[in-house]
């Protein structure tokens, strides 16, 4: 998936930090139970950084939605973000392992410094 990003493997550090601060605000709204929409945050960053911002926003969103009775489905995300589906071939096929994977792997992924 990363190879489909307009930046290549990863956006530059300055963009990653901007994405981080936007995601922080998004998470604060989830914690305040405001129920923010990832869609509303995408305009806060340059267009070519949006696929990565969206990916990070959805990881946070899926984390907070993991206890909801209705499991988020790939179709829901395809409908919400049709313009971004081309960034993920799996999303286009409707399989969405990157969404499902996030749900499954939350809490199990470890990274070191």
């Amino acid at each position, binding site marked *: 998936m*990363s190879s489909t990003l307009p930046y290549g493997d990863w956006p530059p550090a300055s963009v990653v930090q901007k994405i981080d601060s936007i995601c922080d605000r998004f998470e604060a709204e989830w914690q305040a139970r405001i129920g923010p929409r990832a869609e509303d945050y995408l305009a806060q960053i340059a267009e070519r950084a949006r696929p990565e911002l969206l990916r990070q926003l959805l990881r946070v969103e899926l*984390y907070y939605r993991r206890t909801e009775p209705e499991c988020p489905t790939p179709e829901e995300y395809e409908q919400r973000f049709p313009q971004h589906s081309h960034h993920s071939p799996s999303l286009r096929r409707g399989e969405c392992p990157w969404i499902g994977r996030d749900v499954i792997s939350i809490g199990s992924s470890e990274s070191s410094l």
Partner: protein
Amino acid sequence: MSSSGSVTAWIGKLRAGDRSAAEPLLRCYFERLVKLARAKLRRLPTAMADEEDVALGALDSFCRGAGQGRFPHLSDRDDLWRLLLVITERKATRLIRNEGRIKRGGAKVRHEGSRANDSTHTPGLDHVPAATPTPELAAQFAEECRRLLQALEDGTLRAVALAKMDGCTNTEIADRLKRSVPTIERKLHCIRLIWEKELIP
């Protein structure tokens, strides 16, 4: 195949004992690891060969380790880069330590030569490797940690870095800071980017 897909395939090959994957890995990571080693060794009057030796040694250690079934949790290019960073750092640190010993030992050998007949002198104690870091190395390490933490600027990033250094899992850090696990993973990525910039000016 994407770059991340290639790396995953190379890791798979190495695990299966196929050393042909070492060559593309070398092409992909060697230059970056040399830069990292150079940054780490910059306080030593070392030759270019040292930096390249460290980078090659790190890649070799990884390839051998993968072939022996170590690193079972390694899955993609991001994991691999972090692992190579750690191996390279450790090899560079070991080289610094060894250079320090050789320097001290060399001076001692000359000194011992002049005291060869001194029966009260116990020869070669300086050649015994220290079980703990020297005060100089410990101070250098502490200073390096302080510099890296300062470079983070943001308090949350510092808290995540310190917790990770303490050996906490991402879930434990998330619980402690009352944040989501994806947020902790994102913060760790930010920290790595900032520190890479610090280590490789």
